[in-house]
């Protein structure tokens, strides 16, 4: 028995604002949230810019004792979850709490907390590390916080597959609701990346842009790191209808694959297999898809490989597809990327407006797709893909459908 699964709530904290509406306003205006990194003293990094969540004051959302328990990434996840749940107007019962899953994605957990503790240990010769370091750092801290705060006692876990984490998470949650394993799921991801040790490691990878993120543009110079969180409420179409819930759209397919090729270099074959898997899971033909929210990191390797993968799967239809990368605006949020882009995709279908690839300047023959350059485009699309491809060669692709009810 496969049930139809709809999205009835969405929340986002990002560099574009602290809520879903700010996120969508910026995306639809093609307005990037990229600027000089505030968290790190200038001059310590080769790349000066990032997509930070600005003016974040945890005291607005949590009391002091709670803040002590929550790394920034867990705060983002919890606040996005609150917005999603309020948006879905869920009326909790004991039964629903038992039958609701929480599946989150996260790549690096509370490494900001870890960094701080270890600086004290290694540099300041303070021989004690804060005991809250462990519960703050664990990748499942956001999932556990949401569970505690909302009293949700169903299956709760966190998936960590680098930049594909939250697409894998949403896919798992989708399948659980579809199969009837749970009646509802809260799913997405969150990440906070702006601490010096971690950013220095990215600097050494030589894939971060010295200016901004220009996906698919010939003069692209790499990714821009971002932070934030995004969460979705999933439930069966039947129960959403029965309770008169607002429906953003439907999740109709999920596919995953592993490249088994290289630890950091992507492969078009692996990406293509994940896209084909997602289409098969949705029982759709390539020609049914109208829009792809691309992984589109703006690294040399990703954008060329992703273009090749799309051409492999879609053939001539690739020239009729709109493909944009919203990372050009909210940055690459690693374990939160799929969740943010999932919300972006759903809102695109709902509003009939495809967000652009911002900062685009120059066509690249190796990325010769319609990338919706710089200006959002009105288009009624029924089915859209959201791609995530991770370091380690792990790929996860979701298929969304416009609300038809």
């Amino acid at each position: 028995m496969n049930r139809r699964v709809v999205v009835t709530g969405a929340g986002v904290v990002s560099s574009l604002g602290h809520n879903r509406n700010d996120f969508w306003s910026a995306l639809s205006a093609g307005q990037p949230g990229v600027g000089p990194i505030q968290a790190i003293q200038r001059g310590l990094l080769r790349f000066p810019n990032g997509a930070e969540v600005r003016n974040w004051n945890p005291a607005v959302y949590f009391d002091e004792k709670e803040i002590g328990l929550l790394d920034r990434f867990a705060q983002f996840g919890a606040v996005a979850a609150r917005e999603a749940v309020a948006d879905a107007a869920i009326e909790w019962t004991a039964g629903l709490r038992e039958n609701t899953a929480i599946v989150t994605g996260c790549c690096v957990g509370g490494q900001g907390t870890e960094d701080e503790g270890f600086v004290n240990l290694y540099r300041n010769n303070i021989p004690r590390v804060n005991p809250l370091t462990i519960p703050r750092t664990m990748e499942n801290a956001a999932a556990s916080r949401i569970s505690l705060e909302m009293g949700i006692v169903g299956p709760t876990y966190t998936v960590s597959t680098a930049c594909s984490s939250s697409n894998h998470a949403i896919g798992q949650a989708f399948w659980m609701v579809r199969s009837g394993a749970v009646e509802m799921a809260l799913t997405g991801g969150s990440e906070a990346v702006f601490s010096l040790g971690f950013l220095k490691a990215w600097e050494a990878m030589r894939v971060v842009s010295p200016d901004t993120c220009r996906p698919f543009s010939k003069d692209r110079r790499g990714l821009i790191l971002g932070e934030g969180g995004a969460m979705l409420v999933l439930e069966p179409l039947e129960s959403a209808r029965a309770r008169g819930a607002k429906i953003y759209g439907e999740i109709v397919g999920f596919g995953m694959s592993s490249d088994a090729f290289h630890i950091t270099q992507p492969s078009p074959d692996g990406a293509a297999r994940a896209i084909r898997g997602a289409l098969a899971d949705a029982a759709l033909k390539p020609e049914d898809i109208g829009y792809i929210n691309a992984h589109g990191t703006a690294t040399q390797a990703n954008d060329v490989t992703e273009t090749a993968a799309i051409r492999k799967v879609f053939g001539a239809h690739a020239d009729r597809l709109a493909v944009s990368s919203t990372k050009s605006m909210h940055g690459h949020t690693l374990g939160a990327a799929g969740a943010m882009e999932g919300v972006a995709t759903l809102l695109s279908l709902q509003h009939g407006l495809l967000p652009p690839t911002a900062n685009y300047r120059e066509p690249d023959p190796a990325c010769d797709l319609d990338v919706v350059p710089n200006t959002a485009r009105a288009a009624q699309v029924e089915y859209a893909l959201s791609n995530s491809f991770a370091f380690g060669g792990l790929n996860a692709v979701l298929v969304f459908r416009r609300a038809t009810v």
Partner: protein
Amino acid sequence: MSYEELTERVRKIIASAQHLPQEKITPDSTFAELGIDSLDGINILFAVESEFNINIPDDAAQNIRSVRDVIDGIAKLLEGGQAGQPVSA
């Protein structure tokens, strides 16, 4: 430092990073011939930066395809007096 000395130090770094015998590495070897992929390449540049106390800009790093590119790049940075300078954003 003479060009010869610089060449020897670079060969040694690459041999150690790639677990290759040093005699296999000549200034004319390309990264492709030595089986050095993009991740190996940034790992070698990391070792070079540490050895010579220099900072290799990303744009310059992208154009490095051979052992000679590495040697000449270092020579240029050392000539420019870059060693020991802090990274500027």
